[in-house]
């Protein structure tokens, strides 16, 4: 089995060899490591995308808006992802961002995962029918559980999720009440000697 360190180094060098700058290649190395660590087929998708680049051109999406549509070609997932990551703080106030025609969108996914960590919000990524919940770059929940290469996402949607609890106040209180059973009732004498006791707070 290849180590993640080998995967990162080889992906970085290969990206440089296909014409990306060193800085972008560093991002790709880190991202492929991330995909493989989460059990997603990073190497396979990257290989095929690099093959495709030999015969086909892709559009570089630089400035991200809430709706992004390429002019003629498909978007390059690497440059689009880098732009998204770099601009995430200024996109934070949007609720949803849509991209049409992203090539090999699994290569775009780790940028979204890392962006989730930067803004401290969960991001929901939908690549046509494949759904991914990206939680602070720590975890990916998905209905995509095979090793396939996704060649294109006709529509990729990112929803920026508000930091809401996944449970109701009632459910929380129910559990909190149970947790109180680990507390001990304090006696009056203890109350009188606890921190701050006997002093005036109006000094």
């Amino acid at each position: 089995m290849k180590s993640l360190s080998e995967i990162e180094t080889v992906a970085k060098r290969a990206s440089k060899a296909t014409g990306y700058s060193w800085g972008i290649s560093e991002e790709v190395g880190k991202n492929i490591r991330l995909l493989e660590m989460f059990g997603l087929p990073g190497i396979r998708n990257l290989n095929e995308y690099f093959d495709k680049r030999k015969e086909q051109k892709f559009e570089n999406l630089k400035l991200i808006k809430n709706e992004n549509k390429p002019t003629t070609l498909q978007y390059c997932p690497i440059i689009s992802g880098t732009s998204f990551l770099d601009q995430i703080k200024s996109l934070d106030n949007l609720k949803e961002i849509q991209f049409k025609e992203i090539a090999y969108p699994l290569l775009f996914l780790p940028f979204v995962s890392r962006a989730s960590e930067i803004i401290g919000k969960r991001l929901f990524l939908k690549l046509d029918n494949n759904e991914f919940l990206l939680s602070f770059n720590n975890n990916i929940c998905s209905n995509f559980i095979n090793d396939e290469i996704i060649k294109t996402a006709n529509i990729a949607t990112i929803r920026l999720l508000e930091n809401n609890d996944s449970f109701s106040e009632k459910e929380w209180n129910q559990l909190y009440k149970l947790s109180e059973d680990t507390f001990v009732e304090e006696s009056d004498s203890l109350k009188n000697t606890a921190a701050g006791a006997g002093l005036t707070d109006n000094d």
Partner: protein
Amino acid sequence: MEIELRNPNIVMKLSRLGSFHQSKLSFLRSFLREFKNWEYKRDLFELNELGYGTAVYSMRKNSRVYSLICFANELQEDERSDRVIATKWDAAFALHDGVPSKQDIERLREQVPKQEVGRLSCKELTLSRANKSVRIFDHVVENLSQGKQPDIEKLSKVGYLYRTTAVYGSGKFGLADRFRIKNRKEICGPFRLEMMLVYFVRQFTFDQVNHIAKHKNPKKAVTLDLSISRNLGIGNSTGLGMAPFIVNHPVLLNNWILARENALRDIRKIKFVATKDSDLFKTCLKKSIKNITSWNTDSEFQKKKIQSLFNDLNKFIQFIEADFDFSKEFPFNSIYLWIEKNLDEECIEYIVSMMMEPYDDIINPLINQMSAEEEKYFNIPTHRTVAELKEILEKKYSEMLKIDFSQKKNNQKFWFISKNKEEPRISDRFKESGSELEQPLAIARDVNKLYENLSRSKNSSTIDKFLLNNDDLRHIVRRIFVAEKLPYSEIQDNVIGHSLMPIDMLRLKLSFFGVLKFDPKSDKWLRINMFQGAPLPDELKNHKDQWIYNSLN
């Protein structure tokens, strides 16, 4: 008394970094301290009469076991080479996590001797190989088999029986990634497992000579005297592979240097120095002269440095003995100010290392801060502005910004990865081809280019906007934001200039490893010795940390 950390523009110059020496912070010394209470065992020793076969050594504490598996193979004389391009070695080693099963040993027997073309698993932590110093090895075997100890003078000229030519870790060739083991307390310091491997290999070399001598002449043979063994280390041939490492790991570099600088500052701040501490400082200083006078090298460059060190050290000892009063306040601060004024860089850094000797309480907490998580600094803070980035450059890279890259000599060299062995190399861009595949190590040049481009951009513009049109500078922008937070993350020199001495970069790293007696064979590679004078595994429990000054040769 307020004492500031030393200025990175002085400390991080290559000539200064190339003058660093081993200290209490060094990894092989901190490794021995950490493992002193571990149980050492030779678990397997199945060598034939010529010394070929398999051996296993282990260190154990509670439920944790690390095992070194050694494979010693026959090698024809014409197959023995220390170059990294060699494909066969006298012995090959892997450090295994836990107790290896028979299947593990069989699997490793197939893979470990192949080294870079073999495949390891995440159960293995480090990998290495070594060649005999044939002249010394044969001399020792011959004498032991005749019932005599070897000629110490002969041994002292070399200082080891075997030398390694590479030690690999951290995920190379399928080895365990660092993240799998990084939370283990005992390997919190850097390169602990690499140090463990080399330490075990040293013991294997002693066991092997004793074994061969015994089989050669069972009636007469004696074992190698323990005091002689103790004064043999493991040699190492080290080339350019190490140099880019320190550029590619800015956070780690910072943490190493910062630990050293914090130690120096804290020692200079000591108001009154106990007599036992000043005595230990002076004792180590005097004892260490033996290491300098027995430092053999053919390199004129190194000979000059050794001579200057020797002269300065004598000058300093004279100063300490004749004019210096340790009972005055802040004596180490006075010493430091005196050496900065009166001595050369080589000796200044030598004495800085010596100052640490009495202070376990200052040094030990710093050891745990010498590892690094490079990932924590990977994301670029793209919401920052062009003006802010320019300010960091002016503040932290002022020396680099003075270099004129329109001059050919400042742009002379380029770093690349060689195709045949995937190792870093350096070459002349005006004489050799391949500079279009240059590695991103020309920090000073790229910093200048970045500054130029920033100067043409709007100050209020944010970095995400700047990067839209300056994609080629992304790697350097990332570094600048690291340097903003970490003062010692950057070598303040031009590593592609015509006057670059790559040996300085190697010495920096090797001093942190804790090696003695750098012996440059050119400006691009050197031989060193590790663990010379170190306690043997059975003596670890009660060993004295100043063993490094006890070397007989």
